[in-house]
């Protein structure tokens, strides 16, 4: 019987000698990337990053409460000062009972969450049971750690429901992994924390929790220029996740702060010809 030694394999990616058919290789091992042959790798990475200005800037949040996990995010992607999209999916559906949020580099988050989904499925097939949230977040954190210092930008939360109940982990590109019950990530997170922390109670109903999540995202989009678009709210329960709402934040503003019709005090008269 061949033992599974994938845990013992070195996690450093192959530099420079990767085969040309690297995409056909199994994605569950460390993908080998083409690296530029420069003397100064970091300087090149910084220049390439500045030149490309790829999409980032965001507000995402997630919290655990009595009814499960609530996950919410905005949908704006900015490239430098230009809004490249108002409809980015920042809550990624890894599988029917686990969600990941996207903050930082859009391509980095999309790719690594897709990769994580593949790994979770392979785990299910190999072990005949679902992977735990703790396990999934660890897979992602270890993968990101092996690319530490290479300029990836990922600030994600893995939220799900497994045998131990609701689970929430924060994972970032430094390879950091934190377990917690309340997180907000992104340029708008300070604003979201303000609203979220002041309104949070563990014993909230699903409706109250989703309204709190939606309001926190709205307030972050109001004050942060790099956040906006549509506020999406998802709930993760014992049966899996469901999308609860998706509201345009421009319309949410008038929903929370309706404009009273102004009464005209002075009416201008039509100018008559002299």
């Amino acid at each position, binding site marked *: 019987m061949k033992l599974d030694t994938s845990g013992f394999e070195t996690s450093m990616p192959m530099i420079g000698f990767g085969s040309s058919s690297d995409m056909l290789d199994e994605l569950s091992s460390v993908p080998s990337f*083409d690296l530029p042959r420069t003397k100064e790798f970091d300087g090149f990475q910084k220049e390439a990053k500045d030149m490309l200005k790829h999409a980032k800037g965001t507000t995402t949040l997630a919290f655990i409460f009595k009814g499960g996990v609530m996950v919410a995010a905005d949908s704006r992607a900015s490239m430098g000062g230009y809004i490249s999209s108002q409809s980015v999916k920042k809550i990624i559906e890894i599988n029917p009972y686990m969600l990941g949020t996207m903050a930082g580099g859009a*391509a980095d988050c999309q790719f690594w969450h897709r990769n994580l989904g593949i790994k979770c499925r392979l785990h299910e097939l190999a072990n005949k049971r679902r992977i735990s949230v703790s396990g999934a977040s660890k897979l992602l954190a270890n993968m990101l750690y092996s690319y530490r210092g290479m300029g990836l930008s990922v600030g994600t939360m893995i939220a799900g429901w497994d045998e131990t109940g609701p689970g929430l982990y924060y994972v970032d590109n430094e390879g950091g992994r934190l377990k917690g019950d309340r997180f907000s990530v992104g340029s708008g997170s300070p604003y979201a924390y303000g609203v979220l922390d002041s309104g949070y109670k563990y014993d909230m109903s699903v409706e109250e929790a989703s309204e709190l999540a939606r309001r926190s995202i709205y307030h972050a989009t109001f004050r942060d220029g790099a956040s906006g678009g549509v506020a999406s709210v998802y709930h993760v329960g014992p049966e899996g996740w469901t999308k609860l709402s998706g509201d345009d934040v421009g319309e949410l503003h008038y929903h929370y702060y309706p404009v009273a019709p102004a009464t005209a005090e002075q009416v201008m008269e039509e100018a008559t010809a002299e």
Partner: protein
Amino acid sequence: MTKQHANWSPYDNNGGTCVAIAGSDYCVIAADTRMSTGYSILSRDYSKIHKLADRAVLSSSGFQADVKALQKVLKSRHLIYQHQHNKQMSCPAMAQLLSNTLYFKRFFPYYAFNVLGGLDEEGKGCVFTYDAVGSYERVGYGAQGSGSTLIMPFLDNQLKSPSPLLLPKQDSNTPLSEAEAVDLVKTVFASATERDIYTGDRLEIMILKADGIKTELMDLRKD
């Protein structure tokens, strides 16, 4: 000791603009044909649109050498797919392939700004928009390249469709007819040519429908 910086860059920007609009049963992909470097024009007749499959057409601006390399990789991967599955790739499948191809050069990116247009499995038009390292999303219309910041706000004004993230889910394709969409594209490029030095010469429009691909050409200002 002052650090020596490289005076040779592997990248260059050849300019140009690409636009795509998705309709109920068609997809319009358009790009100008000017290829430039710095203030010089290298060619007035360089096509930036490339057919990858019967239902997937790629249009890319940026560094055309990287675009050419990218097209070659996608073409060969598509050929392998056809051998293995005995059918052509659908547009959403090609979209993910393009995203992965771009991300595999994450540390030495393709300097290519892509718009992928085509028809999905149901025959509805679809447009996918990308950044340089592979993040992508399906949209109702998209513009990339040097004139994109001029064109996108106008398309938002004319074609603004409900976001695909809203609940209940709404269709993001434009209700415009094919002729109206082509007219809109011509208008938009004529305006972009006025204010962007890298856009002009000629406009190439490809209209993808279930029964085939039609190409139209229109002259733009050459100054």
